[in-house]
């Protein structure tokens, strides 16, 4: 038997496979396809203080080996999440994390404080990297002073595991990583989507209603791997890697680069069972390489 357990701060994961916010609904959307309990954890949709309608249609454009989205944090809002959704998902036997989003520090604080009171939510992922809303989101995650401020404030009200999700849309990801770690992040997750754009040449117009959107899927994987590796060399907190993961080999690559766990996003749309297939694939890889404990792979890149 190989050991797949990993720890992210106080969170105990039965394996390194988690799902990425905004690509897995709240979990029940996948109940027909997999046992959500088999996963190391899930991160639910970005949740804000008030209900948000998000951006107008069209919100999606497929690009080579990837997709652009401009959902714009459509979500039910934290109060509705607590009253209607939390009761449906609190008994999943896995780590259910909430992706906390906002436009102002006060909004992040409101959501974090309310989620802190939920017994069955052991951690939050602070989204300071959403490229699809006008105010806040990525604006917080792309400058050191604002990233530091929001993480410091949230740290004061949030007592459980605080994961901060980093934006790739920066000149030097390690600077932000250092700042938010010093401000109190227990772990970091990366990367959020890369700002991109798609044009319909026939109509000579942008495809997305917002013109620009966030790129995800296999196309971003090399960028994501590079950033995980850079951040792993810059800070000491555990990392959750993501960006374009489709199979167990991709997972192993992220772990070798320094990730303790991974989140799978866009690939869930193509194969709703991809997460459990990755778990099986990791076991097979470990057996093939004579690795007994998956933790041995973390940051084990040979140079």
């Amino acid at each position, binding site marked *: 038997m190989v050991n797949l357990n990993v720890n992210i701060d106080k969170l105990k994961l039965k394996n390194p496979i988690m799902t990425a916010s905004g690509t897995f609904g709240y979990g029940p959307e996948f109940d027909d396809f997999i046992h959500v309990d088999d996963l190391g954890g899930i991160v639910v949709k970005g949740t804000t203080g008030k209900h948000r309608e998000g951006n107008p249609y069209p919100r*999606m454009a497929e690009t080579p080996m990837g997709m652009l989205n401009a959902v714009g944090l459509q979500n039910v809002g934290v109060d509705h999440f607590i009253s209607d959704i939390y009761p449906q998902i609190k008994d999943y036997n896995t780590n259910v994390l909430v992706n906390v989003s906002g436009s102002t520090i006060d909004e992040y604080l409101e959501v974090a404080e309310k989620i802190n009171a939920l017994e069955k939510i052991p951690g939050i992922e602070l989204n300071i990297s959403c490229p699809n809303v006008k105010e806040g989101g990525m604006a917080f995650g792309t400058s050191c002073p604002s990233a530091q401020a929001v993480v410091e404030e949230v740290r004061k009200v949030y007592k459980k595991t605080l994961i901060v999700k980093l934006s790739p849309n920066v000149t030097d990801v390690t600077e932000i990583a250092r700042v938010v770690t010093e401000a109190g992040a227990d772990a970091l997750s990366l990367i959020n989507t890369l700002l991109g754009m798609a044009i319909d040449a026939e109509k000579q117009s942008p495809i997305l209603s917002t013109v620009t959107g966030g790129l995800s899927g296999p196309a971003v994987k090399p960028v994501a791997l590079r950033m995980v590796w850079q951040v792993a060399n810059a800070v000491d907190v555990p990392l959750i890697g993501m960006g374009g993961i489709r199979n167990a080999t991709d997972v192993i690559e992220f772990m070798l680069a320094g990730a303790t766990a991974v989140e799978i996003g866009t690939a869930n749309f193509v194969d709703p069972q991809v997460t459990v297939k990755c778990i099986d694939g990791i076991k097979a890889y470990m057996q093939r390489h004579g690795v007994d404990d998956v933790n041995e792979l973390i940051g084990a890149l040979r140079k």
Partner: protein
Amino acid sequence: MKQIIDFTVVSNKTLNHEHFVLELKPDKPLPEISAGQFVEVRVDGSENTMLRRPISVHDVDYDKNILSLFIKKVGEGTRHLSELTEGDNLNLILPLGNGFTIPDSSNVLLVGGGCGVAPMLYLARKIAEKGLRPFILLGGKTKTDISGIAAYQAFGKVAITTEDGSEGEKGFVSDHPWMKQETPDFKLLYACGPEPMMKAVNDFGKKHEIDTEVSLEHTMACGFGACLTCVVDTTKGHQLTCKDGPVFNTKELKW
């Protein structure tokens, strides 16, 4: 329950330069499918078609355990599907979405234009299974856009319009006498096709206070409510084409 099922291509019928019908056989019995529901087809073998393609259920033959899809070639994914031959494999997620209301009266009108005829055959079959005979109006640019009429005739009263007059009445579906009646007796209208066509059917329904159900084709990444990209503006705010639709009563849409 939504399932992921492997299918084998039984036949691929070319109807004309852009439309084709795929007949698919699953490796287990087909699940219960409502008229108006759709499938998400995985298109392998091209780096530009990572995401699945949403396609309406055209017909289901439970005796033979065969599902058919009516598809229009518009880009790389649908072109790839048009090249499949007998024995090829295809992976589908199904059944997805809500479906049309099945009426209690024969006085309903089904209108399909272009590849919007796709869901109408199975809808007609489901209505006919209740012992009813609906009115079915099929529109195309030219004669070759309309095919397999006999299948529809088995389930209802069929009329055709073509823009060039090469088959049936000349003009758009909205030029057909059924849609020119002063006091139509229809209890419900159904439309699928290009948006101007669906809007014309809706205008007819509005004028005579008849409810209209339309099937929308908004672009989507997943098809089962996770990506939130296929939103439709409705009286209840943003709703999802894949989960709350693809069939909407036009009263809910801001049409």
